[in-house]
């Protein structure tokens, strides 16, 4: 028998799913649950888009190469940094 659907629980569960914190069986249940409720499915699609958006659009700083090579040099030259 299926549990009754609770939108609030589903939202917090699909966040766990998007964070990779559910096991495959739980994920499967979640996907079924999402098919049962338009509202939750919509929320899920939006959240998924938002995550992708953040991942793709936030700019990342790279380590300046001059700094990195001077850092490597420091370690190579040191006999022992203890």
């Amino acid at each position, binding site marked *: 028998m299926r549990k009754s659907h609770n939108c609030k629980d589903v939202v917090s569960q699909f966040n766990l799913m998007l964070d990779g914190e559910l096991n495959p069986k739980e994920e499967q249940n979640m996907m079924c649950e999402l098919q049962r409720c338009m509202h939750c499915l919509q929320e899920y699609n939006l959240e998924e888009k938002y995550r992708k958006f953040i991942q793709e659009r936030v700019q990342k700083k790279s*380590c300046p190469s001059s700094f990195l090579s001077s850092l490597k040099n420091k370690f190579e030259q040191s006999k022992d940094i203890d």
Partner: protein
Amino acid sequence: MSKDKLTKLEKDKIFNGELIPQADALYNFAYSLVFEEARAQDLVQEAYLKAYRFIHSFEPGSNAKAWLFQILKNAFINEYRKKSRQPQKVDFEDFKDKNQLEKQSISIDIEQDVYTHMIGDEITSALNSLPVDFRVAIILSDIEGFTYEEIAKITDIPIGTVRSRLFRARNLMKEQLREYAKEKGFKELR
């Protein structure tokens, strides 16, 4: 072979093979904490110095990235404590939110025109405007892809707190983005 007695060659092999490849991610993390190149470099250098000193406690092939992030976070907190003149606590203490957490999550329709046209700069400023704990939560999870367990270790908070902090951080981020979108939409209307 005792791990305490790694030769310089062995240390260097781990250092160059496993630790140095994390430099970009580590630097990005440092920069998002201090927003200054020189200070970010100091933090990264200090993290690498510590890592090298304690390299015998690192299991080769294990999670070098999480280990380095944890070291850098600690270096940041130490630096903050040393330099801070203000008695206020900023760092990784849990933010006591006033029952905001149970509120419905905020959805944003990213397909909204103004929102889609938001440029990387604006999104990055939105992220940078969040309080440090929330900024860090988003960086560690949404950008660097650490698990809750790793984030708990890096930031030294319980897993349940990681989960609630992330939820709140994302909602704050969405609010910020909506504000930016509104501003932009307003400008475009004129």
